[in-house]
């Protein structure tokens, strides 16, 4: 068995036993970390594997959160229906946005994704009848696992749902980046002109992975709404998109697992320090700078380098 398999299995066992190890509020925090981990992982698909830096990824998390909130609150459907709706809405909106944005590369792509995200943020902010405007949608319930099925209100139940979603998304994403399609993405990241001259237009590849990343971000948002009980415009704001980039870089760009850990580190720093000081962002920024300078490749990239050496 390879080292990465052993680590993966250990992580899986750890995830399963956590509800019996952690206190109630700690389990709740871990659930939160996993949701943001999924968000950062989805961003890594386009950023780390395809070389497309999006400044508007929060929009898809937000779309997922709103769709999920509405399905749960207004239609009282089981949570998986809300997850499906969230992932679907994010993917459907990402299709035209991606179609336009992937016509540009580099900083222009980043700016287009930012512009579209801010546009979507404004819609969420202004369309009071549907989104509740600046108040957002509150009181989103954790309904059942299926019609007439067990409720998900207990922290343990919802934790397991989130953990299962994150693990499945990770496994699926790992399969994608190892597939012929995923290998093509990495070639695009490395040298787009060479890719084109070897016989394919890179744009359809970029569009597909852009939509795929949005679907996973939408799933994360769809988990967020019932877990926190609300959806609000803040989760679509560009600041959150920027934090996503930081999570990916802290954890290790182009590793999928790294960004999940990066999100955890990022949120934990915020969680711990914000109870002491309102200036916690100074420390997050400092940690970010130190990691970029001293641990290129992030936490996982550095660990792999040391592992390969030792």
């Amino acid at each position, binding site marked *: 068995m390879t080292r990465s398999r052993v680590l993966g299995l250990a992580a899986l066992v750890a995830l399963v036993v956590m509800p019996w190890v952690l206190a109630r509020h700690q389990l709740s925090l871990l659930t939160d970390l996993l949701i943001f981990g999924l968000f950062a992982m989805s961003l890594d698909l386009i950023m780390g594997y395809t070389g497309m830096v999006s400044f508007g990824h929060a929009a898809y998390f937000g779309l997922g959160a709103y769709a999920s909130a509405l399905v749960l609150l207004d239609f009282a459907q089981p949570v998986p229906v809300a997850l499906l709706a969230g992932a679907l809405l994010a993917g459907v909106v990402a299709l035209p946005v991606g179609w336009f944005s992937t016509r540009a590369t580099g900083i222009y792509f980043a700016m287009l994704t930012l512009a579209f995200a801010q546009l979507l943020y404004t819609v969420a902010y202004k369309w009071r009848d549907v989104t509740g405007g600046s108040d957002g949608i509150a009181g989103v319930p954790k309904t059942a696992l299926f019609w007439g099925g067990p409720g998900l209100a207990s922290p343990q139940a919802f934790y397991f749902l989130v953990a299962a979603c994150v693990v499945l998304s990770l496994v*699926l994403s790992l*399969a*994608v980046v190892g*597939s*012929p*399609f*995923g*290998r*093509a993405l*990495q*070639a695009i990241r*490395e*040298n787009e*002109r*060479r*890719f*084109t*001259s*070897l*016989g*394919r*237009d890179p744009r*359809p*590849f970029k569009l*597909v992975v852009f939509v*795929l990343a949005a679907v996973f971000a939408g799933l994360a948002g769809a988990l967020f709404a019932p877990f926190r009980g609300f959806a609000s415009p803040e989760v679509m704001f560009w600041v959150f998109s920027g934090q996503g980039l930081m999570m990916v870089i802290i954890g290790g760009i182009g590793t999928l697992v790294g960004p999940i850990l990066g999100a955890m580190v990022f949120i934990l720093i915020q969680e711990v320090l914000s109870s002491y000081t309102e200036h916690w962002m100074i420390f997050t920024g400092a940690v970010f700078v130190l990691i970029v300078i001293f641990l290129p490749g992030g936490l996982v990239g550095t660990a792999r380098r040391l592992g390969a050496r030792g």
Partner: protein
Amino acid sequence: MTPLLETRGLGRAFGALQAVADVSLAVQPGELRAVIGPNGAGKTTLFHLVSGLLAPTSGRVLFRGDDVTALAAPARCRRGISRTFQITSIFPELSVLENARVAVQLKAGGNFRLVGGRGVLDASARRARDSLGSFGLLDRADALASTLPHGDQRLLEIAMAVAQEPALLLLDEPTQGLSPEDTAATVAVIRRVARERQLTIVLVEHDMDVVFDLADRISVLHFGELIAEGTPSEIRANAAVQTAYLGGLD
């Protein structure tokens, strides 16, 4: 016999600058054609026009007798025109094998297999290894392409194009920046692979020794225009070429 590649009155202007003007040439299957000319003669522009990276402002490109002028670069590659670049163009942070494998996959298909696709990966890896073997790069297959010495990176780029099993191979200054020893080795490899795989090659080259050593026929560009064409000995004896180009080197 229908030429494999034919250009008819091909031209490209950049504003007031006519980089390539009214170039008509025909390359027969199995031929090794060199395109020479001083700096700025329009050699690389001609390559971009043939491979589809640039659209011409006049004229047509025919491949196997079909007009491919309207086709973009990826479509021309899939029809059988593979190329390399003057400045080494590889996938630096992918392995040597993966560089060649992706080249095969992109042309052969199966690119939108999002999960699985083991068959696609294995089949393309076989052809990639075969090509890397021809260029003596197989023992470095697992190394990152960026860690290869410059000469091997240039060979890798050719190996990627050859792995695609093209009908026409365009080489843009394959010996650019190489030491005399590496140049000799590269020329030997190109000659051997061309013969083994019965490739038709058009190459742009600066190094006159390389050109007269390798080419069956030579086309001479000067200020975007085709001023001469013939066998190496004919070109050597051509007065116009002497003045325009070769004389400048003596």
